């Protein structure tokens, strides 16, 4: 069984390895936003006392550029394949396979993310390093913690996207959840500004009570070494809890959805 999922992950990796031009275009796009977001956040540091909400200039630059790399790695904004398959009824093909639909898609997505971490993550970070002074982690452990953090972020992102699309089992047209997800994931996830720019209590509440910061904000805070190793491990723990909770929810929703599914004729 495990071999099937490994094979699916490898297939996911290979599939995205063929989209070379798309990856190049995405890196260019993410880099343009990297320059813009860096300029805006640097203006904030310039106007403040060189350190704003615990971020100095190199930390902010790293936050922005690694954040631009994470967009395509955790894939916040993905095509709505699953919702379309549910609407058209094609999803029946997935249900006929002798593998669990959630694990099957997660395996494919992890393969995709593995490929993206070599291309869509490294690309913008390299551009950022060329033009800005990025912060190199001072503790070797940070590299390992960041790797784990990105893995958790990918799982949470996958789970959220799965849930948004699975809404189509009930709604058929999952546009509402999709729009809400696009809006909230960037804004409350820490992509447009570090969440610590908000009042501390609000930032904490978002991190603990919503999955969004586990996708962008927390991996970046782990990378720029916000706090001690213990703090980094605590952030990872929050992410792991969200990953577990969301995957459990995905499986439950999938089971309920299968019972609800009406394959439209045509």
């Amino acid at each position, binding site marked *: 069984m495990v071999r099937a999922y490994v094979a699916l992950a490898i297939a996911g990796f290979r599939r995205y390895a063929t989209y070379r031009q798309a990856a190049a275009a995405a890196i*260019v796009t993410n880099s343009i936003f990297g320059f813009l977001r860096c300029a805006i956040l640097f203006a904030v540091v310039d106007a*403040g006392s060189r350190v*704003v909400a615990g971020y100095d200039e190199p930390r902010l630059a790293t936050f922005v550029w690694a954040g631009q790399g994470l967009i395509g790695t955790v894939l916040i904004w993905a095509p709505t394949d699953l919702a379309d398959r549910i609407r058209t009824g094609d999803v029946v093909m997935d249900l006929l396979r002798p593998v669990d639909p959630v694990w099957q898609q997660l395996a494919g997505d992890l393969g995709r993310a593995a490929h993206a971490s070599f291309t869509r993550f490294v690309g913008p970070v390299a551009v950022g390093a060329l033009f800005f002074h990025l912060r190199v982690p001072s503790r070797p452990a940070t590299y390992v913690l960041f790797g784990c953090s990105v893995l958790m972020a990918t799982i949470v992102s996958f789970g959220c996207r799965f849930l948004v699309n699975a809404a189509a089992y009930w709604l058929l047209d999952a*546009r*509402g959840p999709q*729009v809400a997800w696009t809006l909230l994931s960037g804004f409350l996830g820490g992509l447009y500004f570090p969440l610590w720019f908000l009042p501390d209590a609000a930032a904490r509440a978002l991190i603990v009570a919503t999955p969004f910061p586990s996708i962008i904000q927390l991996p970046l805070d782990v990378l720029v070494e916000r706090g001690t190793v213990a703090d980094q491990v605590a952030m990872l723990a929050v992410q792991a809890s969200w990953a577990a909770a969301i995957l459990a929810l995905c499986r439950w929703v999938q089971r309920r959805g299968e019972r609800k599914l009406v394959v439209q004729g045509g």
Partner: protein
Amino acid sequence: MGSAGFTAYRHIVAAQVRGQAQYRASFAIDLVGSVMFGVIDLASVLVLFRVVPALGGFALGEVFLMATLAGVAFALADLAVGNVERLRVYVRSGLLDAVLVRPLGVLTQLTAIDVAPRRVGRVVFGVAVLALAASRAGVAVTPLSLALLLVTPIAGAVIFSGIFVATATVAFWWIESGEIANGLTYGGLNFAQYPITIYGAILRRLFAYAIGFAFVAYYPALALLDRADPLGGPAWLGYAPPAAAALVAGGAALVWRIGVRHYRSTGS
């Protein structure tokens, strides 16, 4: 475009609007979503001002005015021609062939086929907030400033529309270009929301002057606020958005024409 062409265009848009209005709940959700995109753009500005008193030498009220000017301009352009970004889908699938053989303008067809009335939400929201932002920023109520408040978003919309069209043509040369156009369209909105004083020399030359995003909000806002340009630009630049818009539109039309001539069917 002759009057027959215009009638056809009107029918396509009306059919689209009627069709989308059939799904009331979906349309209502889309409308709310459209408004929320505008809300989030402005909320991001407010969040930054929570941690600092000024950005690039401008206070919250002043930057908020720039952000709303840019927001309305973008929302109008998105409503008018935003769907041209689907050009790459048409090129890849070969559907553009069908569009080309019809005796109507290619660009008008493309924007009409996919017209998205939900985007009205963002326009209405933007206009409402713009009135509020102008009064909060202390814009003097004179015929000149009112005229400028009216003309600026329209000129800005023409600039954004030109960028939408020009960047969409990338698909004629590079089919797998993905979301690369977003860098200049949504990126342009991002850029124009803030005073150009915060950007470095290269970014400013490229986005503010070469493309013309400085005329979407920054210069007209200076004129509205009766402030001198910290970068030393002359005061009349505040009244230059229509001229800048004409230049961008001309450039975009040229790029579009070259692109359409260059089009080769994918044959699929």
